[in-house]
């Protein structure tokens, strides 16, 4: 029933959208006709329609982008200088609070740990797997299986890994894989996700597990794009496998590696679901995105502090944003 209503709304929405584009174009051509007019008038009208039409095409998208992305950025910055309800101006008090707040500093520290470890390892594994699977006949099957976690939600992945980290008291049979292995080698079972500091790494494993497939797909395409001649020349010069890979192939795909790295970096900054589902920030595993969610919705909510944490995340993203824009404009410069 509800699904039916959704599909109906969707059809209505799509039709309305199509109707908008069709109708505005029709009206434009009706007001400024270019057919059946004499030279000067026709070309004048053609010029006008050509100037207006792009904006008709862009209008809905610009509207949505403004409401859902640009306005919120401005508003968040504004809110971050206001109190919990957003009414009165408090200056930099939210930022002051933040710097002195132990949990915030913990989150920043953890976020930097994530930023150091996850993009590096995901890119590294992705590169290795891409290079290895390109050499074997069942490489595509292997790639598909390693790529698969990408389709799994962070929450689903959290359940999967929580099961692996599951802990039973010493002496009883472990049903979590990690503890079972540890016990089999004579170690003591641990409640992995409650170990301060180290639990960060157990959570990071989940994101690495998900993102390696992404890195692998992109890097594999880049490796295939390397001109054969460079590799052949290296072989003739007597380079061995390692030298070919690290000195000939990797330097040629630095650009792609950087793209993969930054993409995963941005994802890491936003990581929220995994921490929420695994520890909810307990045992010193808090990260910025989850801390912000806490301040927004728990305990009555403090929009000022929540917004100021969001602004911090935004500021961390800005360098990558600028880098992306510069790359994109360089690429499309010729077009």
């Amino acid at each position, binding site marked *: 029933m509800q699904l039916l209503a959704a599909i109906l709304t969707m059809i209505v929405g799509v039709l309305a959208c199509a109707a908008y584009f069709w109708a505005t174009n029709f009206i434009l051509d009706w007001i400024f006709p270019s057919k059946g007019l004499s030279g000067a008038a026709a070309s004048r009208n053609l010029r006008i329609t050509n100037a207006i039409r792009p904006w008709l095409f862009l209008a809905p998208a610009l509207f949505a982008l403004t409401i859902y992305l640009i306005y*919120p950025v401005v508003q968040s910055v504004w809110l971050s200088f206001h109190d919990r309800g957003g009414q009165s101006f408090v200056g930099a008090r939210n930022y002051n609070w933040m710097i002195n707040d132990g949990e915030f500093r913990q989150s920043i520290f953890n976020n930097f740990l994530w930023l150091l470890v996850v993009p590096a390892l995901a890119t590294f594994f992705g590169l290795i797997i891409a290079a290895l699977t390109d050499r074997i006949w069942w490489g595509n099957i292997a790639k598909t299986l390693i790529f698969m976690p990408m389709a799994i939600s962070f929450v689903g992945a959290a*359940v999967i890994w929580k099961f692996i980290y599951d802990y039973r008291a010493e002496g009883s049979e472990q*049903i979590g894989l990690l503890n079972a292995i540890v016990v089999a080698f004579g170690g003591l079972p641990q409640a992995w996700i409650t170990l301060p500091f180290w639990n960060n790494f157990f959570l990071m494993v989940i994101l690495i597990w998900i993102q390696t497939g992404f890195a692998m797909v992109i890097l594999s395409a880049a490796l295939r794009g390397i001109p054969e001649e460079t590799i052949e020349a290296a072989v003739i010069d007597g380079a061995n496998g390692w030298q070919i890979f690290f000195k000939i192939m990797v330097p040629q795909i630095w650009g792609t590696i950087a793209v993969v790295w930054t993409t995963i970096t941005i994802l890491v900054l*936003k990581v929220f679901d995994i921490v929420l589902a695994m520890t909810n920030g307990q045992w010193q595993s808090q990260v910025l995105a989850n801390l912000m969610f806490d301040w927004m919705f728990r305990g009555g909510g403090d929009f000022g502090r929540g917004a100021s944490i969001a602004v911090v995340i*935004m500021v961390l993203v800005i360098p990558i944003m600028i880098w992306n824009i510069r790359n994109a404009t360089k690429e499309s410069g010729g077009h």
Partner: protein
Amino acid sequence: MNPSTRSPLTWAVHLSVLLLVILWTMPTAGLLISSLRDKDQLAVSGWWTALATSSRNDVARAPSADSQVERDGKFVISGNLLEGRGGGQISAFGFSSREHGKFKAGETAELNDGERLTVQGDGSFEIVSDTKMEGSRGQRIFYTAATPPRFTIDNYIEVLSAAGIGTSFLNSLTVAIPSTVIPILIAAFAAYALAWMPFPGRAILLAVVVGLLVVPLQMSLIPLLQLYNGVGAFFGVPAKTYMGIWLAHTGFGLPLAIYLLRNYMAGLPREIMESARVDGASDFDIFVKIILPLSFPALASFAIFQFLWTWNDLLVAIVFLGAGEDSLVLTGRLVNLLGSRGGNWEILTASAFITIVVPLIVFFALQRYLVRGLLAGSVKGG
């Protein structure tokens, strides 16, 4: 590479890829296998032992003295230890928790008050006494039983009928389908304008779209929530509606959609459009009749991305749809179950598999387009 390098190194490559594949698939495999196991077995043994016969120590209480019957001048209490416990094979038994294995199945054990207990391998037992037995509590019997592996879909039946997963499944579909379709059309028109229609400010606009690709979602939550509350109060409608979340997902998905589609459309041959224009076709005609059909691969890859993202999303859903019992999407339901049923792995594994099965189907069926989309739009950060 070339055949002359076929050597131990080739084997090393095969082996290491195999190892990596196992490493990457095992977590999911563990979940799937566990969700199909009997819940009693799931709770006491690892999923990797699923195919092995598991042996467990257990205790049962014989019926009380009331149920004794007189037979050949002797008093007998009989029954079956494994009744209602899923079958199996008893290997040994005893009378205390320290003596699970004191007597082998089939042997007769002497109890201290002259009663004799025999337990057979199939679980049937007899307590025989020369005198009339007394006492209201039955004799406790400790035993070791080997249970054959058991697979069942009971966990799924239980989850689907009770835990509200069914409702959430529908909610997720209701959120994901329109959130996937609506942005495509809007983005396609904008992408065409950015790719093929000259106008002042096009380069800046494109730069803005690329910039917006990485804006953290978190920025939008508080302002939009306030906006929704304001709009809701103004029109007297609830602030948390499906319409609201569809539009939110549309807004958040647009930068990637525009970027992907523009890149693809910009790569289409200019001649097609020019010859159509010479024939008198307007931009609108060109877009609808030529560009849109040609862009199908790009549209498909964006659709897959957006569907996976909206289906798997947790944050947008709990903020804009709420965490109420009726409005929870699958990911939200799963988080709640993690909190409330943290130890019930039979519920968690089955629920988790239900939440990931749709994206997995989409993934395996349409992987080709997904890869193509990734390669075209790798600036986006999830």
